[in-house]
């Protein structure tokens, strides 16, 4: 049956960062109403978890879709170094204009990881807290 099946590899990473939810397209009052505590002008932080899923052929010589060291290195360089212990609003270019909600954080991470050359990026899941999680799989999202 293995011919009909597909294998994915999932790996979880962590970073800690601060953000503030504030949209220039809304008034102070609206920002406060929509974002509540998350609109606090000095920002606040989270321990984020990023779950990265990739797929591809399992190499018979290694038994692997991709060597974890290569995936770890890529995620570390493209995401963790840029996000960990940073202010998302101030330190990450993409969030100078865009509100760093976890929806957008998830999409930004997906775009950064999409070019990974050694396996196909299937989806990115970001947990902002243990109770809030967001997933993005590009525009052609496929439930599985």
């Amino acid at each position: 049956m293995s011919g009909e099946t597909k294998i994915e590899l999932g790996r979880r990473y962590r970073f800690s960062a601060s953000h503030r939810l504030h949209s220039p397209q809304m008034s102070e009052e609206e920002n406060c109403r929509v974002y509540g505590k998350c609109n606090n002008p000095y920002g606040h932080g989270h321990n984020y978890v990023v779950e990265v899923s990739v797929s591809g052929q399992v190499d018979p010589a290694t038994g692997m879709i991709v060597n974890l060291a290569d995936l770890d290195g890529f995620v570390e360089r493209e995401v963790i170094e840029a996000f960990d212990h940073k202010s998302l609003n101030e330190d990450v270019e993409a969030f100078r204009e865009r509100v760093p909600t976890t929806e957008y954080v998830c999409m930004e991470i997906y775009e950064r990881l999409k070019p990974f050359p050694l396996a196909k990026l299937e989806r990115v899941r970001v947990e902002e807290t243990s109770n809030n999680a967001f997933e993005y799989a590009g525009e052609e999202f496929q439930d599985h």
Partner: protein
Amino acid sequence: MVYLTRKIEFSASHLYHNAALSAEENQRIFGKCNNPHGHGHNYTLEVTVAGEPDPVTGMVLDLKELKEILEREITQRMDHRFLNYEVAELKGQIPTCENIVRAIWNLLEPKIKQGRLHKVRLYETADLFAECYRNEAK
């Protein structure tokens, strides 16, 4: 369609080594996992079965039966075993998460008679897992 997931755990040892490669290559590719005496993990397996609830019992499948299948096919085969040497289904393969999850799919798929096997996810650690599912989207 309803998706039902049951979780089991098993503990096993393994090592990664490809005899076709030199000692240096094995070390470079597999790193610590190439330690000749092996090492172990507590694996967590999540098995998802898809189906319509039976109108009489309200069940997609009898959980007792699924529990027995998992006990017989997976726990008895893999729990407290050295995966490289003691599990026939992994013979000749490097027992990575990817290969183990595929072997588990192949063991379980023909045994699930009510509903059908939808997905298996195997955690090697809390931060590393592999999934196997039917590739019907492509």
